[in-house]
């Protein structure tokens, strides 16, 4: 009885183990320390975004007239603003709004860009020319300027900032995905898919789209960092969150009036924005290095 068990385990060990692509990916990715650090920070900040509002040491909107523009101290570790509101609490509470805005804008913009890029690349011809020329026109504007123009037209507010940031995300994704589609489209297996009777739409979504996922994931992770920066910039310029809302860009914006007397008001929100954007960029770089076969 025990003999059979031993021989079974022995034969199981002798069998060649199938290479698990997910395991391989994790192994390669974890070799890049900066990317892992980026990912760790992203996870940390996402947790903050979820539980932040409930773990603030002070009510982020409560005024404390006894501590106006107070510097960092044991009571208020990141100091207070001109109304005596605790900066640390406001940044904790604001993570949700800042990240939420950036992520939502990125997802909407990316989705639209992907669909347009797929259509342009796969169908080609006039459709392609039209979509790409419209994108070229949008590229002619500096991204943030375009977002400002959009928000100026439809009015300020968080939702409109999302729309603005999403709109200028679209052309870059359309172009990236179109490029990837052109590459995948010339593969023999796409022709084979059509030869077994797949419709053009089915071929496009089932066989061509997965081939562009790699470019999509990498660029999405990098784009989120940019979107955080753009959304914060818009709020900083007064187009986004209102003064009462705890949003990183808005906090920074208020602090700039006291740059000389209370530099902690710009330092801490600036640092948090900087670290978050850096984390997304490092993570994106790491993903690209891991996924791109040409770099391995």
């Amino acid at each position: 009885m025990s003999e059979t068990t031993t021989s079974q385990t022995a034969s199981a060990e002798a069998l060649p183990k199938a290479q698990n692509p997910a395991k391989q990916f994790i192994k390669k990715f974890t070799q890049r320390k900066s990317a892992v650090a980026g990912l760790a920070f992203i996870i940390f900040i996402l947790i903050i975004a979820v539980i932040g509002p409930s773990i603030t040491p002070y009510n982020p909107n409560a005024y404390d007239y006894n501590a106006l523009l107070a510097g960092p101290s044991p009571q208020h570790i990141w100091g207070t603003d001109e109304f005596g509101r605790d900066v640390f609490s406001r940044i904790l509470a604001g993570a949700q709004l800042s990240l939420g805005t950036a992520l939502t804008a990125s997802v909407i913009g990316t989705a639209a860009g992907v669909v347009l890029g797929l259509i342009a690349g796969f169908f080609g011809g006039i459709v392609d020319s039209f979509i790409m020329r419209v994108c070229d026109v949008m590229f002619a504007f500096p991204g943030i300027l375009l977002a400002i123009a959009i928000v100026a037209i439809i009015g300020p507010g968080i939702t409109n900032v999302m729309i603005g940031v999403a709109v200028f995300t679209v052309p870059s994704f359309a172009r990236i995905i179109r490029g990837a589609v052109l590459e995948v489209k010339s593969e023999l297996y796409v022709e084979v898919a059509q030869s077994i009777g797949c419709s053009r739409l089915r071929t496009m979504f089932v066989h061509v789209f997965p081939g562009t996922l790699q470019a999509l994931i990498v660029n999405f992770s990098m784009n989120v960092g940019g979107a955080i920066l753009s959304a914060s910039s818009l709020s900083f310029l007064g187009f986004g969150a209102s003064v009462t809302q705890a949003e990183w860009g808005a906090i920074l914006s208020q602090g700039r009036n006291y740059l000389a007397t209370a530099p902690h008001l710009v330092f801490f929100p600036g640092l948090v924005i900087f670290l978050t954007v850096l984390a997304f960029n490092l993570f994106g770089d790491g993903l690209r290095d891991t996924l791109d076969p040409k770099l391995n």
Partner: protein
Amino acid sequence: MSDTLLEVKGLATEFKHGKKNWISAVSDVSFEVRPGEIVGLVGESGCGKSVTSLSVMRLHRKDTTRISGDIIFEGKHLLELSDRDMQAIRGNEISMIFQEPMSALDPIMRIGDQLAEALTLHTDLSKKEVHERSVEVLRQVGIPEPEMTLRNYPHELSGGMCQRVMIAMAMSCEPRLLIADEPTTALDVTIQAQILALMEKIRRENNTGILLITHDLGVVAETCSRVIVMYAGHVVEEAPVDELFKHPQHPYTQGLIASVPRLGERLRRLPSIPGSVPDLAAMPDGCRFAPRCRYAQERCRCNDPVLHEVSPDHTSACLLSEQEREEVAHA
């Protein structure tokens, strides 16, 4: 004519060249395939073999390709069908096998999902029945562990295995016609023999008509019953396989056959056909083979040759008769 499976009449395919020009890749191609018959389509690279097969499947891009002539499959004029009707035929009634098995399968889809795709598109089978049918076709093409292979990705299989999967995919809906575009070119000789034997088995068991595109005369001699020889976008000769190898009529066919090494023959240098296939954009007038033909006469350069019967079932597009060619050879 009811026993004809596929009839191609006067097929001409042109590609857009620049803004307004069209160049003709194949023209005036006519042939037929009957059920349960393997027809070889032979010629060197660039002579229009693949263009012909892709035209039959209507897989060319619409905006850059013009196809004219008649392609009649079981009484249906394929060129007149809507895109949707054509999709229902592809993979269902006409299937295709490609040259490079390794790149013909979607690299990020499991074999099982790819096999299931054609079946779900063209049949009403349930998920379980699709699985059973997939296992069955994989077993038919000689894959030893079909259940396991279904869970594999293409990169986990060898080239020969991939080609078997490709054939299984093409055969899963029991098509009436199979177009095999150089199915064995990328495979080594032992696998080649197995794949050819497999195609012969499919023909025998399902009475499938097969159009075998190849540049390998050895493959043709081994498997085909009839051969069509193409040169520079034209059919130059058509004959039953024995007849073609014994009495090739067109100087191009003769050159092709002469350039195959034979066992037991001691030759210093293998004969070859001088020159190369003319450029599509600059086709010579008259017979397209004339510039490379050792029998070419003045009239070959100004008259367009037509296929004519030289003996029953055997047609050739050479303007000179056998006798005339002999005279030229002795002169």
